[in-house]
């Protein structure tokens, strides 16, 4: 069963642009990316859109649909009414290249700054050993597909471009948490999390968790535990005292 939907798609580049309206056919079972592709093939051949797997695993087709950061390939058209106008814009926190394609290089620059995984020495037989329960928490964060929706929705950098110099964004907070919780890692990242990556900027309003297509509990399982680890290190006199008298050498 098909119907004609009204789409508003932002078209332009870094110099400017606007929302342009289109009427485009929608078939049963389709997602927003299907409709964008139909638009591209039938009406606006030069519409720029980044996509790859169309299965919610590559993180390429991130955009904002009716104002909410979403993956276009995972947003079913059946979630909208047939008479509802669907507005598609590029990610608003990053520089636009053209139409729906943004320059997300900020995120790769942040990724390069994270101190690398530094495992402890191997055991005598040449192996590293760890238990499943020790790495379960970190494994949740490994589900990240780096779609940058959490980075896009985070008001710290979305609403304050200047904060990009001080705050790396939620994706990199959970990367720091992942490494800091890892049983084999030897680098203490707590000071760096606070001073270099701007953990204190996060006011845990949880939008990153709301938009994550992988359902990662970014705030509850990543950022807040990391904040608590920083409290151990920086703001808790009892834990500090424990570290001085040898009860908590890791604190």
């Amino acid at each position, binding site marked *: 069963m098909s119907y004609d939907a009204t789409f508003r798609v932002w078209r332009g580049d870094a*110099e400017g642009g606007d929302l342009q309206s289109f009427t485009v056919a929608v078939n049963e079972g389709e997602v927003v990316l299907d409709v964008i592709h139909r638009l591209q093939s039938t009406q606006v051949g030069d519409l720029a859109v980044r996509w790859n797997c169309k299965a919610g695993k590559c993180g390429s087709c991130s955009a904002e649909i009716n104002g909410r950061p979403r993956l276009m390939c995972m947003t079913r058209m059946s979630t909208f009414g047939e008479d509802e106008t669907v507005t598609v814009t590029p990610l*608003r926190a990053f520089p636009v290249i053209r139409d729906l394609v943004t320059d997300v290089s900020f995120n790769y620059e942040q990724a390069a700054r994270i101190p690398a995984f530094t495992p402890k020495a191997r055991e005598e037989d040449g192996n590293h050993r760890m238990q499943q329960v020790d790495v379960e928490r970190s494994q949740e964060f490994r589900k990240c597909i780096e779609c940058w929706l959490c980075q896009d929705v985070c008001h710290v950098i979305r609403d*304050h*471009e200047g904060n990009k110099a001080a705050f790396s964004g939620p994706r990199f907070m959970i990367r720091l948490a992942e490494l800091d919780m890892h049983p084999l890692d030897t680098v203490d990242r707590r000071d760096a999390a606070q001073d270099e990556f701007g953990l204190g900027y996060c006011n845990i309003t949880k939008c990153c968790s709301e938009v994550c297509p992988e359902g990662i509990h970014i705030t509850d399982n990543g950022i807040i535990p990391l904040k608590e680890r920083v*409290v151990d290190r920086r703001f808790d006199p009892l834990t500090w005292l424990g570290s001085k008298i040898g009860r908590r050498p890791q604190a």
Partner: protein
Amino acid sequence: MTATAPRGTGAVTPGRGDGGPAPRRAAIAERTLRTDRWWVQPLVTVVVLVLFIAYSTFRAFQNAYYYAEPYVSPFYSPCITTRCEGDSFPEFFEGPSWISPALYILVLPLGIRLTCYYYRKAYYRSFWLSPPACAVAEPHGRYTGETRLPLIGQNIHRYFLYAALVFNVILFYEAFASFRDETGEWGHMGLGTLILLVNAVLLFMYSISCHSCRHIVGGRLNSFSKHPLRYRAWTWVSKQNARHMQYAWISLFGVAFADFYVFLLATGTISDLRFF
């Protein structure tokens, strides 16, 4: 037709915060393009919290109708002055008569709620609009989060947790003490006993499900396998932590209701329903 920025200016908003105009972003003037009723949730939060703050402030300053044998309102528990009504615990000092005994203690429950990771989300969004909802631009030109005073003080949340756990013990004590009747004899139970007991349980669940508690019982460890008991405790607290928001709201309503019930008894508006 949507409002758009003229060519050449780059983005209008969001992104014009501390760093000035956001370079090269898509020029979209609207604060948000969300079409749902994103403002409902912050509005409801504001209304409910303002009502609670108004009620609790009135009751805390009222300095009356907080004791109806054998029940003590949770707003006045523990009642630490000798001026407290009834045979209350623990009566440390006399204090001026014009200061309500509630004012000495309420700073601690207020502190845990104010620094709670859930309530921070709730009031940063609804009162400070930072942000009011996801992908809705906040109205502030500058944002430093919890990096400096006073908000860096949110990091002492765990100390309020420790105090709250002491309060939880006291509230259980008061609830069990209400199994005595007006003459001090054990073997009584009224609706008030049940209400105080449920209130104590809800406040305990709110404390124990706290993110700081989750960290302290085991979250700070990197090798759970070496600490199996703490791992089990962490696993249980983690399950409760997933419901922390629900406990935060239910316990808030619960404590207000418990106080209101004692108020109704103390003013003689109703009489306690006796089970035995």
